């Protein structure tokens, strides 16, 4: 597969971009990664995603595919190499899509909001929301995994990618606020899954390092503080 035929517009620290990277890595698909500056969008980004102007965008030949969940499904549909990211059973697929939508729409924004919260009063409800969501996802994991190591079963699948992409920034949130959110004692099964996911060789190549994300977070916070003076 010629790398010039496949481009991924992204940014190393963006978890939505990481989702696309996981999907491509799992299928051993080569591509050219084009690092975007989120504060100065390139022409190629604006033309390939005129509606949202956001990363990730996968450009296959001259065809752009936008939105991380749609990209992951496209990679699964288009390349038959390697195990399928989505479950083979239609009901299991519907369950995976349901939880992916829940994670993306309802849960995903909260760790970022918590990390950036300035006021103590804001932090408690966010912490509770994140914890409640994780408990729900613990139950979902038990249902979807059916005793196997991943949401996808024996191998990393769609839902592992969707939730797994949040783990690096979740660790940063825990450090910044000083609270253990994915607590091994309270959420044991999901904690075990998170350790397994982060130890996977394909994942380690993609998932950003906590220290680098923490550095980035501190840079952004300083920038915001200076800007508001």
């Amino acid at each position, binding site marked *: 597969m010629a790398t010039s035929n496949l481009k991924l517009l992204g940014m190393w620290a963006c978890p939505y971009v990481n989702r696309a990277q996981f999907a491509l890595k799992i299928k051993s698909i080569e591509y050219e990664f084009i690092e975007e500056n989120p504060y100065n969008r390139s022409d190629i980004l604006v033309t390939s995603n005129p509606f949202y102007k956001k990363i990730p965008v996968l450009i296959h030949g001259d065809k752009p595919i936008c*939105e991380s969940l749609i990209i992951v499904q496209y990679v699964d549909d288009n390349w038959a190499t390697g195990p399928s990211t989505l479950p083979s059973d*239609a009901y299991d697929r519907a369950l995976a*899509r349901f939880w992916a939508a829940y994670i993306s729409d309802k849960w995903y924004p909260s760790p970022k909001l918590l990390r950036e919260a300035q006021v103590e009063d804001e932090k408690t409800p966010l912490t509770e929301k994140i914890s409640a969501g994780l408990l729900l996802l613990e139950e979902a994991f038990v249902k979807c995994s059916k005793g196997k190591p991943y949401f996808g079963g024996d191998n990393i699948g769609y839902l592992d990618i969707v939730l797994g992409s949040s783990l690096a920034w979740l660790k940063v949130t825990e450090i910044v606020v000083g609270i253990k959110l994915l607590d091994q004692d309270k959420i044991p099964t999901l904690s075990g899954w998170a350790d397994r996911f982060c130890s996977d060789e394909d994942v380690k190549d993609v998932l950003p390092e906590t220290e680098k994300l923490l550095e980035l977070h501190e840079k952004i916070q300083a920038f915001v503080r200076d800007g508001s003076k």
Partner: protein
Amino acid sequence: MGDEVVVLLDSYCSMFGMRVRIALAEKGIEYEYREENLGNKSSLLLEMNPVHKKIPVLIHNGKPICESLIIVQYIDEVWKDKSPILLPSDPYKRAQARFWADFVDKKLYDAGRGLWTKKGEEQEAAKKDFIETLKLLEGELGDKSYFGGDSFGFLDLALITFYSWFHAYETCGNFSIEDHCPKLIAWAKRCMQKESVSKSLADPNKVYDFVLFLKKKYNVE
């Protein structure tokens, strides 16, 4: 497939529920329709969708599937031996259909809601947003008969259900959608010629009555 038990928990005026009705009709699947009172949700709904407590919920042989577009894809996959196939077979066209259906969900619902829940400048802003969103969709349709090309498909299904709300939106917002998006209205009328669509969509006058009821309930004048 004679042993299949299919139940749909729904609400007559819901454009999301209508999507599932169309998909089931397109595939010729028999099912039991159960109207939910959203002000007093049934214990079955709460049991089948504990996370969101929302309709539509499809219950297939006792197992619930939630979220309208997820349900439609499920129906298409389970009953893949029944034509039509709603999602395109080509992976890129499939991604495009999913993208635009997601776009409808992200943009059109909220803009439309603003039309009957807001007043003054806020309502005008919602109207502008609504028309812009429809124009983008009209652009995607182009000169095709359907978003799916020559035949009615996933994206047509995702959008057409909003057509039953157009009369309510137009009356509340005091404007004509056809003035801005004539091709889209032509497309909608084409879709309405399909029995699966015309029988699944709510009567626009009943939708408007429902909106008036909601406006009174939430004190929006």
